[in-house]
């Protein structure tokens, strides 16, 4: 067989191979970005609702200053957060701050009876569930992209074109740290 023909076929195969692997990685990145905007939408909704919640709690439970401050602090750190990791971290902080706020609300029957408060509570816990699902979807996409990137054809092509592993949306052991009890 003609050597030239074999060479041409080989080159075409290599080009196709690079092309498809590159596209798989690029598509993976786009999907991750899309999935992240799914999380972001919910985070923004949460940021918008928190001030209303604080207002309605203030009216009934003035003495829980520290708790309310925690929520505000977590909220503003979520607003400032830039990277995936930071967002995950401060979102986690906000979740636990809200959790303790809702726990303490049990002590205030008037607050618990307030329609406004109940509605906010329901909406915020719905957002929390939605964030959990959006996070799950995001992490599924990240893990599928990362595994393409570290396995053989992807690792080669990814290295050449400078694709990097993506971060999962998860807080860095924040929760476990805060539960530690000192004696």
């Amino acid at each position, binding site marked *: 067989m003609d050597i030239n023909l074999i060479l041409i076929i080989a080159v075409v195969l290599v080009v196709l191979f690079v092309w498809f692997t590159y596209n798989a990685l690029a598509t993976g990145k786009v999907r991750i970005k899309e999935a992240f905007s799914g999380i972001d939408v919910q985070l923004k909704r949460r940021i918008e609702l928190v001030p209303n919640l604080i207002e309605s709690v203030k009216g009934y439970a003035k003495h829980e200053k520290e708790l309310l401050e925690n929520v505000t602090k977590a909220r503003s750190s979520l607003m400032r957060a830039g990277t995936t990791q930071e967002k995950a971290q401060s979102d986690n902080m906000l979740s636990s701050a809200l959790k303790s706020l809702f726990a303490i609300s049990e002590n205030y029957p008037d607050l618990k009876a307030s329609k406004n408060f109940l509605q906010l509570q329901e909406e915020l816990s*719905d957002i929390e*569930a*939605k964030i959990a699902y*959006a996070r*799950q*979807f995001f992490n599924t996409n990240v893990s*599928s992209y990362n595994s393409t990137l570290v396995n053989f054809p992807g690792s080669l092509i990814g290295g050449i074109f400078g694709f990097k592993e993506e971060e999962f949306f998860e807080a860095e052991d924040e929760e476990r740290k805060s539960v530690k009890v000192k004696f």
Partner: protein
Amino acid sequence: MNIYSQISANKTKTWLIVVLFVLFITTVIFIYGKSSGYGLSYVGIGLVISGAMTFASYYYSDKMILGMSGAKQIAKRDNPQLFRIVENLCIGSGIPMPRIYIINDSAINAFATGRDPKHSVVCVTTGILDRLNKVELEGVIAHELSHVRNYDIRLMSIVVILVGLVALLADFFMRSLWYGGNRRSRENSNAQSVFLVIGIILAILSPIIATLIQLAVSRKREFLADASGALLTRYPEGLASALEKISHDKEPLEAANNATAHLYISNPFKDKITGSWFANLFNTHPPIEERIKILRSM
């Protein structure tokens, strides 16, 4: 195999099935044409009619199915809890929000239909809303949304249409034999009588064969939807216990008929499943005990 390759495999499979069915239908029409004595122009007309019908039913299948089942669309304010479950699971699987319909029937059942995730419908009975708890309902909805995301809804509506077409053609052929077949049968009667016999046998068998293909496709899809539904909720026990409740419930769903039975999450007629391979060939759904067993072993 990640979920995206499952989906693209499913899309390829849809095309393969469509091509196979078109070949099958063409062969059937060819034999009908030969045996009834109308010749091959029959094939052309048959194909044009079948093509047009397939196309039309592809776009209207969801409306027809919903109409047949007497389902009514609801808005978020009618049942916010159900809407939230669907919204959350849609976010988790990355698909747009489907329309939600309700069938007013105390049987426990649900189905999904449509042609792609952007044009999809999830339909539940009032019985399922009353009798399942939130976790179980979540399992069921996740199963239905997996049908949507995996493009099972498209595959199944196309298969159903094609099966219907085969039955229609067979019927058409039998009638044409009855009314007009004898006119031209004197010329080259030997070859024609052979084709006539083949034609009649085919007319009897082809709807059965087509139905068996449909049922095999349908059963396979149920297992996949169970698995990816469980992956979505991360809690297989929810769907397992929902299926258990469904299997203990003896009430058939009046709104279901033979044409829509395969769509539901479990067989709406509540027939006894005997377990022999021959009886299983004719089931729209795999035995519920087997599905529960697989879910519990995850």
